[in-house]
């Protein structure tokens, strides 16, 4: 397993996680202010998965994300300002305000979209891997999906297809133990979700999704397998979401104590402690760095707020390809 180094590399991961957390922390506030329409799903607590996996990827590689996809998108390299602008429905958003939180795509970074349909990304990443094989471009594709999505039928078909065709796809199951209000304990009878991959001939591993080093190690190994033509891998990563399913969630399905307990294994705190211990950074230096990160996210938010709403005529563009018969 490729160990993530408790050095400069670790510091870069730490910063990215912290910056994403600051970005996501703002979502409920922006929602309350009425700046976010519909629903938005922050992923505080789950940063190590998005960052750990992305660090094993290049711009050429593709990801297919979920309704809870800001972190996946940002970790893949998306600009914080433009991502925020999309969430606020602005002109400078990656999709010109047409997509919003649940439909952010960034072609040049291989972000095939956050997605409003639970489980859809599983099929999409499988297709990206199929394209990689057809084109021989050596890229790999990652599908992020939740424990809830693992109960969608597409999973069975995708596992089988990816396995028989040895597609370069990595299925990343983020087990945060809840699907909206449904507890995983009530929704699956076999809690070892790696068995689902194994049943289809997809090598499957579980790991601590709150630990950046562990995620990175598992992801790197899976990417190597994929690039070597050995086919798909399933990673089942244990994690937890600190906030409700979406802004406004009453959270009647879980206790405050449970949430607090989960926070004691925080991915950012854990890595920071390790880096301090290894002498890579001091607590004082991290305080300065944190402030800088805060400023960067603040600037991104201001950029988004200052971006104008799209022109009404944009409502009717891009329905069909330019120059096509329609």
């Amino acid at each position, binding site marked *: 397993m490729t160990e993530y180094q408790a050095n400069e590399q670790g510091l870069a991961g730490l910063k990215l996680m912290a910056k994403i957390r600051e970005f996501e922390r703002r979502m409920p506030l922006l929602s309350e202010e009425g700046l*976010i*329409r*519909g*629903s938005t799903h922050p992923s505080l607590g789950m940063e190590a998965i998005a960052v750990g996996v992305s660090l094993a990827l290049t711009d050429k590689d593709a990801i297919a994300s979920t309704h809870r996809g800001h972190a996946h998108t940002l970790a893949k390299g998306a600009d914080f300002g433009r991502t925020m602008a999309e969430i606020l*429905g*602005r002109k400078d958003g990656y999709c010109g*305000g*047409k*997509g*919003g939180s*649940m*439909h952010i795509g960034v072609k040049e970074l291989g972000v095939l979209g956050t*997605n*409003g*349909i*639970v*489980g859809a990304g599983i099929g999409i990443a499988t297709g990206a891997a199929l394209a990689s094989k057809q084109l021989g471009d050596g890229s790999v594709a990652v599908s992020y999906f939740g424990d*809830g*999505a693992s*109960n*969608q*039928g597409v999973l069975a078909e995708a596992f089988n297809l990816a396995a028989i065709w040895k597609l370069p796809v990595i299925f990343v199951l983020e087990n945060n133990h809840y*699907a*909206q*209000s*449904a507890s995983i304990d*009530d*929704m*699956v009878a076999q809690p070892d979700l790696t068995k689902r991959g194994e049943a289809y001939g997809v090598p499957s591993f579980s790991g601590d999704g709150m630990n950046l080093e562990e995620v990175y190690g598992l992801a790197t190994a899976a990417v190597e397998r994929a690039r070597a033509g050995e086919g798909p891998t399933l990673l089942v990563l244990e994690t937890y979401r600190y906030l409700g399913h979406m802004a406004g*969630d*009453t959270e*009647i*399905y879980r206790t405050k104590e449970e949430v607090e307990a989960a926070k004691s294994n925080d991915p950012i705190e854990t890595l920071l402690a390790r880096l301090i211990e290894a002498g890579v950074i001091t607590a004082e230096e991290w305080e300065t760095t944190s402030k800088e990160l805060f400023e960067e996210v603040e600037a991104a938010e201001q950029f988004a707020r200052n971006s104008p*709403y*799209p022109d*009404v005529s*944009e*409502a*009717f563009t891009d*329905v069909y390809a330019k120059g096509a018969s329609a």
Partner: protein
Amino acid sequence: MSAGKDMVTWRALNAAMHQIMEDHPESFTLGEDITTWGTGGGTYGVTRGLLKKFGRERVMDTPISEEVLLSAVSAAASRGTRPILEIMYSDFSFLGFDGIINQAAKNRYMFGGQFDVPVTIRSNGGSGIGKAAQHSQSLETLFAHIPGLEVVVPGTPGDAYGLLRTAAASDNPTIFLEHKNQYYDRGPVGTEAIPFGQARIAREGKHATVVATQQILSYSLQAAEELAAEGIEVEVIDPRTLYPFDMDAVYASVGKTRHLVVGHEAVRDYGWGAEFVAQTVEAAWDKLDAAPVRVGGSRAPIPYAQVLEEAVIPSKDDIVAAVKRTLA
């Protein structure tokens, strides 16, 4: 919560659900997050209190598995139960179209009339609250196109109550589409079931007939109000069910007004409004003084930003303009 007074739509639906579960011991209800989410009764409260009253055997939270659920409830219906499945947003029903369209809708027919399929699929459609392209579609036309399905589109709390009771009692697979921007509309609610295939005259008038459903129905009533100030009396008709549908009500109205406008949120092109116009033209050409006008959603997915969303959905002003166009 009993029916029989002024209520908001979600309460009316909730009252209907309680009544249905009592009336039909063979009924049960299921769906994603219907007992411990938000209000304790799904996204909009429709299933609130059911678990407490009827227990886990009859009120079931499901995994996120639309494909198997749509097919399984259909089969369960053909074996003698009366399931009511909630699909959180109608957009997600696409995952299970085989179950609804190839199986449930055709079951009676293919097997020579042996099977009843008394399943109700409850869901919501429509735009207006920024849910964007994958949570805002108006799919009623799509369902209405399929032989074997009944399609219900209640536009008021009273209709929501009365029509849901009929849906649950129906021996056909019924698609019951609530409108997500109308759950908090308030209005009178009766205590009786409302039969399918009987349109409702929502407002009487003599100069033009507007046939519209749900959100566009309420815009049409506002448009009628505005036009009345100019001396134009619009008759507004709510078909309430798109299959079966009540053309006689339309012919009767057009016989009075001699002008027809059809409005819906579903995409205008190939939309159900075209069906109403075509049937009127074919059967009641002599009752029309001018070409009918269609108003509907643009041929575009529903965008996220509010300015864009409003641009692709018909407004009150679009209805006013359509009435004036047919009267011009």
